[in-house]
Every structure is written in structure tokens, then in C-alpha cells.
């Protein structure tokens, strides 16, 4: 995809947050796997790019991390949303939807407003 890096980072962050919101506390591998699935395998995520993004979200205070046990009894670091993170997700989602609506109007075949 010919996206600019910062836009990509921004969308990646949103996808991560949405994933955690939907799935609850999840480890890095799980998040990556889930994003791939959700995007219908259209996105080929280099899993390594996830970790700097997770760090940034943690530094900004939207998620927190904690070591815990996975289903297979593997030690893993789990990430969960903070309250600020939850608010951020809702706001970002709303903004995205607004933007897609506006862009859609431009891209739709011309309709005379009546």
C-alpha cells in the first residue's frame, strides 16, 4: 500500500487499540495475528513493526502492559486499554468515520442535491 509512514503509524495505532478493545487484554503476537485476520489478509503486517507502535501507545498512556500467562502456559506480555485509551478509540473512530463520509461524497458519482 502506498501509504505515508505517519498515516500508516496512525492507522496501525487505531487498529491495535480497536483490537484490544474488542478482544480484551492480549499479547503482541495475538494482536498482530488478529489485525491480519480482521483485514482479511489484505494487510501483510511485518510483526516486528508492531512493537515500536505498542511502545508509543504505552508511552502516550493509552495502554498498559503486564506480564502474564497465555493459554498454552507461555509467559507473555499482555496489553490492555486504559480509560484514556478507551476515550481515544471512540474519538478516533468517530473522526475516521466522519472523514470517510466526507471523502465518500467526493468520490461518489455526482448527485445533484435537491
Amino acid at each position, binding site marked *: 500500500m502506498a501509504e505515508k509512514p505517519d498515516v500508516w503509524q496512525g492507522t496501525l495505532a487505531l487498529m491495535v487499540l480497536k483490537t484490544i478493545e474488542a478482544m480484551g487484554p492480549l499479547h503482541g503476537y495475538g494482536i498482530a495475528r488478529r489485525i491480519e485476520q480482521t483485514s482479511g489478509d489484505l494487510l501483510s503486517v511485518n510483526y516486528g*513493526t508492531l*512493537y515500536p507502535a505498542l511502545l508509543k501507545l*504505552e508511552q502516550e498512556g493509552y495502554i498498559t502492559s503486564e506480564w502474564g500467562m497465555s493459554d498454552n502456559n507461555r509467559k507473555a506480555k499482555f496489553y490492555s486499554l486504559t480509560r484514556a485509551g478507551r476515550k481515544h478509540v471512540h474519538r478516533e473512530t468517530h473522526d475516521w468515520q466522519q472523514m470517510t463520509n466526507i471523502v465518500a461524497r467526493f468520490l461518489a458519482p455526482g448527485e445533484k442535491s435537491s
Partner: protein
Amino acid sequence: MRRARAWFRRLAGVFNKSRRDRELSAELESHLQLHIDDNIRAGMSPQEARRRAIIKLGGIESTKENYRDRRSIPIIETLLQDIRFALRMFRKNPGFALAVVLTLALGIGANVTMFSVVDALLFRMPDHIRAPEQIVNVELMVKPEAHDPFGSEDRPNVAFHNFPGYLNLSENVRTMDLAAETSAWPIDFGRGADAREISVSYVSHTYFSLLGVQLAFGRSFTAEEDNPAGGIPVVVLGYDFWRDLGADAQILNHAVWIGERQFTVIGVAPKGFNGLDSARLDAWMPVSDVPVAAGQDLLHSKDNWWLDTIGRPKKGATRAQAESEIAVVYAGYAKTDNGVRGNITMQSSLGSKVDWNVRLTPYFDSRTDKLSQGARVSLWLSAVAFIVLLIACANVANLFLVRMFQRKQEMAIRLQLGASRGRLIGQTLVESLLLSSAGGGAALLVSYWIRPIARAVLFAPETYVGSFMNWRLIALTIFFTAIAGISSALIPAWRVSRSSLTSDLKSDRQGRSNSRSAARATLLVTQVALTLVLSIGAGLFIESLRHAHMFDQGFQTDRALLASMNLGTSSLKTAVINAAYNTLAERAAHTPRVERVALAHAIPLMGGIYTSVGDPASSDSAFAGIDQVSSEYFAALGIKILQGRSFLPSDRAGTLPVVIVNQTLARDLWHDENPIGKCLALRNFNKKECHTVVGVVPDQIKSLAAGHTMSRKIAGPAFNTADAYFPMEQHISKDFDGPPDGLLIRTFGPASLAQHDISAALTGLAPGGRYVSVRPFSEIMDPQIRPFRLGASMFTFFGALALLLSSVGIYGVLAFLVRQRTAEIGIRMALGALPQNVLKLVIWQGMKFAALGVVIGIAAALSLTRLVRSLLFEVRPTDVPSYMTACAVLITVALLACLLPAWRAARVDPATSLRHE
């Protein structure tokens, strides 16, 4: 807000690096494990599972790098890394680090010390004064007449004010607050065994409030106390003086003897306040309490000019407005005084009308005009200190170059591995700045310790110098440290940026590139040249000091003391004072170690009375100093009688009036004729009386330093006046009747040794227990010699410092070059060269630098020393012996510095050196 929070987290991330690294590794490891488990569950083999998981994760190293970059602030990380690396390098090579720090500490320390001196002398505003930049000096400018020996036509003199003039100003000027003050006057304090001499200033009651000074306790004078019609004698003591007296908190309302009266203490000034100048003041008294000698009326007479007037423009008034108002007020005053219209003209002390003018100059700016000799020398010394810093930096740059060369392989490898040149240069800068910071810190310490020594050498003992640490000093230290650090790193950094990888990687330590040698050679030659300039300067100043010491005053100062009582303003009758001095003379004559005593009216080096004299037989006149002395005078001062005889006890009242003249007077009045037997008369007093000349003595020099800037009509460095000496017993005119001014004492052996005994013998002999001051002439002369001694000692110190630094520099570079050429030397010796040849080779290499440096240094010195001509005493700036001595010293030092490396080179074993890589 979020970004700030993120930034702080990143800052924190700088600090717990290893823990985070471990955590990330653990997380990535766990990620891989989870993925592998999934893959295995999906049916892959363990190896395949692992392989796919790793591929999918992407480059682990690049992930880690991105993570790290995100986690902390990369620039700070880099900096910390560089610092840690530099510290490790210093630990491995402590000699290098120590050499650099020491060199820089000396160079920076010298500059910091000089700056604190110059700062105290020139820039520091006195403490406790409110808004000192507003204070102005009300200056009366007067153009001197043609034959005034104390001025020149093109430079107007600044005159004092008289008291009625000040009063007139203070009553009529609306735009300024005004106050009167005197400079520091010496006066006696106390009675009996605790009597001493102190330094006081007489000020108007507006003085303290004009300056805005808050007294430590007590109060300052009221207008009633400063009333010329009869004020109440009160005094404000200086803080240090109050402490000397015992720091009695109850001192208020106590009475103390000052001069001839008792004064009530009403206040103590704050610590560090010494009026407007830097000399220590012990007390302030109302100006109307100024001690008056008989016949003087300082407070009412318009002919006594003795006050300074200072002012502060009131709110809303500018200095220009105030200046014009004062000019108008003063013109009005002059008119009523002399009835002269038009220009302000008044009587001068020499009896004729001169042109006057009034102007306001800021008190504290004009300090640069009034630069004392000591201040001027200090400024020069600052420049010298800067040169020393340059030499130090050159040394350090060379040290860095050498070290760079030793590390060139390491540098090449790092470049190969991907480090950018910028990074390497940054690392060099970090190293150099670390070292120079250590040097700067050490310099502050060194300067703190040296400061008392510098103070003792540079300043008159009574000068008050404020505290050491102030923000200006610290800012300057940082500035010098930065200069030192950056300049020392420049050349090596440039070297790094130009290094060629392939040649450096070769383990060949014997390559020599032209640019590198050129840099090194230039540095070394510059060092030598600068050092030579400093050494020549030191030589000139030492010579100057020697001349000043040896200068023939016309009398022997090292065995002479002066005992005096400050009785000029007392109400004691002349007969009483005469008797007192006779008692002192008697007692002193019987004190051990005293050879002779004599009384005199005018004391050498301490001013005198001048009047017009001439031969009644002709109309020629000369302006001569008049002294009345006892018959032992010339013997007591060790003055040779050149012609005729000295005074005898038979030259008394009633016998033939006689006089002894000095060579200048004899030449002025009688040219080449024999003056013995001629007549001398005072033109303005007792005109007809003929005093027969019975002897001729050499000229006495009145002042060393003053002679420098004196009237150009008088050639030579000192001021020769014509002098005439009369016997004290013979009465020349009633205008000259009066008690003697002092007792001259000649000792066996140095005067300073006998000072204590004589002082103890004479204490308490003055009427009423007044203070008797006993001082060797060397002490009286000292303020005049001090600037020359100052120049000599400081230049010598800096010259020695520069020599030390340069010799270390030469040694270092040579040692390095020898090591570099070890293989070559080994080959030469294997081919049959003798140790002496090798010795000569190395020494020649070193001396090449020295020789070139000497040549350049001489050229530089020839052009630069001209600038200090005014600071030298009877020494030409091109004084050949000084130059030759300095060159000899430098060449010797350079030779010595070459010897050790040369000797090491000569001992090289050809076999080992050839294997040596």
C-alpha cells in the same frame, strides 16, 4: 499533553536501558514461541515452524533498533555513550588525560585569576550604593597657565571645589541631589598605647542618603550636625575598623579621639562599604568638622579648594539638564565673587586668572580615565594570560593529534563498520570538552588558592577587594573552557574527517602525511614564538624593576626612617611642638641601632613648599623647594656634599645666614659659575636678605612614577626640582616659622629591622599621648615602586608558566616523533650509524622548531613591546640584553626538552626496533 507525557517517558527511558533491553528480548522471545506453537499446531515441523515464525517477525535487529530509538532520546543516548567511552579511554591512558587537564587548568586558571583582578579593579561597582551608574562627579575644569609645572596646555586640570562654592550649589541647584566628600585623608586616632593612624573621609550630611547606603546600625549625620557654624562632632565608623576596635555592639554614643577632638560614634557602615573608591575607609565625619590648621579657613575661605562634589540627577531630570543648570548656578556664583562678567574666570592658586568650566561626568565610567598604574598593568597581564591559554591550547591540540595518530586503526575500523564521520568528530569533541571541563573546574580551584597571592602582589594593602565568586567569573570560566575544549579538538577532528581508510588500516605506524606534520609543526613553532615574546616581556619588566630599585633618589632609602606626629591641625603652640620633636629626637638618638637623627620641615617624597628665589644681584628667578633642616640632615639621609660644606652647629640665629642648594638650583641661577659664596634671596619674602651659599648637594628625586607623565620640558624619568636648604636655627622669614614636620632617623643596618624598637621607644612621647608614626622610607616609597614590581613579578610568573608549557609540548612531540621513527633509526644504526649521529639527528629535528619559533618570536616582540613602553622604567623596548637573555633561556629549555627523547633514540636496539611494528 500526550506528547509531553510521551517525551518524559522517553527521557526516563534513557536511564534503565539494560532492564528494558532484557524485557524486549523476553517479549520477542515469547512472541516467537507463541507463533511457533501455532505453527506446530497447524501441522508444521518444529524447524519449519521456527523458520516461518522468524521470517514473519521480520529483522529482529532492526525491530530492536526501532524500538530503542522510540524508547529513549537518541541524542542523549549517543552523548552518554560517548561520555562512557571517553571515560574508559581516560582510565586506560591516564597520563594523557592528566597532562591535558593540568595544562588546561594552568592556562584557564591564569585567565580566571587575571579576570577576577581586572573585574575588581575596573568593572565591579562598589557594593551598597543604589544605582551607581547614575552618580556623577561635578568637575571644575581649569586650563593651566604656561609655567605651571604640574599641568600641560592641552590637558585641562580637574580642580577641587571650595566649600562656599559647594554650599552655593547645594542651595540653588534643583535638578540634582548633591553631596560633598573628600578623598581618603590620614589622621590620628586614639591616645596612648592604642593610638594609630586611620583613613577618613569628610562628607556632607547628604552623602549617605544620596548614595542610598543602609548603615549596619546607627544613623548618619543630620543637617544640624553638619553645620559650619558649629556642628556637633559625630562619626560613622567603617565596618572593618569597627571590627578592629573589638566589634563592640554597644559602641554607639561612645566618644573617640580623632585628630585633636573627640567624636561621638553614631553609626557603623555596612560591611564592604568604602565610599566611592576602592581604598579602605575607616570613618566618615561631617565636612564641617574638618580639622583646620591655624590660619586656614577651609569652611569659609574661597581660596581653599579641597572638596569633591558628587550628584545624582533627581527623578525626571536628565544629566544634560542638570549640567546646564549647574553651569548657570556656578556662573552666578562666580559673578558675585569677582564681579567678572562673561566667561567664568576665577583666581587660581598661582595668583592669576584662569578659565574654568563645569561639567558632569559619570563617576564610575570615568574610572577608565583614572586608571592607576596598577590597573593598566593588570590589563596587560590579562592579555598575557590569554597568550598563555593559547600556548596551553596548542599543547593540548598537539597531544590530541598524537593520540589520534595512535588510534587511527581503531578509527578506520569504526568507519568501516558504518559509523559516520560526524559521529567520530562528535566523539572527539565530547572527549575534548570533558577534559577541558575538568581543566576548568581545576582552574577555578587553582584560582581560588592563588587569589590571595595575586591580591597581595597587585593591590595596595588597603584596597578592598570583594568576594571571589560571582556570576561573571563563572560565565567567563565556562567561556574559556569552551574555547579551550573546542579549539583543542578542531585539528584532530579535521584530521578524522580527512582520514583515508585504506592507508590507516595498515598497521604501519610509520607513515607520515604532510598535512599532519604541517599542523604539528605550526603548533609547535607558534608555541615557541609566543613563549619567547612572554620571556622577553618578563626580561624587560625585571630590568625595569631593577632600575627602579637602584634609582638614585639622591638619598639612601634603605637605612632611613621617618618619625612624625600629625600635629598640623592641633591647637598646640609651636613651642610645645618644637619641644616634642626635640624630645623624640633625643630619645631616638639613644635607641640602639640608631646612627643619626635630624629634623626637617619638608620630608623627602612627601611634598614641600615652593616659592620663587633668586640672586639679588641679578633678575633671574627660579621656582625652588624650600626646606629648613637641622644640621645632621644630610648625614642622616646619606646625602653627599658635592661642593663646600654641610651645616654646622655654628650656623645659628644671629650668625651669617647660610643656605645649601642642589645642583639644579645652582645651574638654574648661576649656570657654570661656582655657586659657593653667592647670595640667594626669597623673592616674595624678606627680599633683601642675602643667604650665602655654603654647599651644593645632588638633586633629590621627588617621585618615580609621577615623572613618567610629567611635563615634557623635563627630560628623564623623574622629576627634578630645584631645592634650597636652610638651617632650622636660622629664621628666614616669619612666614616659614613653624614646627618641623618630621624626624629623620638613620640606622646601622636595614631600617625595617629597627622599626619596632624605635616605635616602642617613641610611643607615648607625643603631647597628650598622641600617635607617633614610625615608618621606614621603603614603606613610603613602596606605592611608587609597586607598579614596577607588579609588572616584573607577574610577567616572570607567566613567562615561567609559558616556558613550562612549551617545554612539555616540545618534549611530547619529539618523544612521539622518535617513536614514530624507531624503525628508521634502527636501520640507520644497523647500517653503522653511531649513537652520537642519532642524537644529533633527533636534537636537530627538535631544534629546527625552536629556531624558527625564536626568529618569529623576536620579530613579534620587536613590534609588540613598543606598546608597553610607558610601563617600563628607564628601559628601552628594544633592550638588547633582555632579548638575548630570553633567547638563551628558551633555547636552553628547548635543548633540554630534546635531550630525553634523543637519548632514548640513541639507545634503540636495532634488532628489536626492526621487528617493532
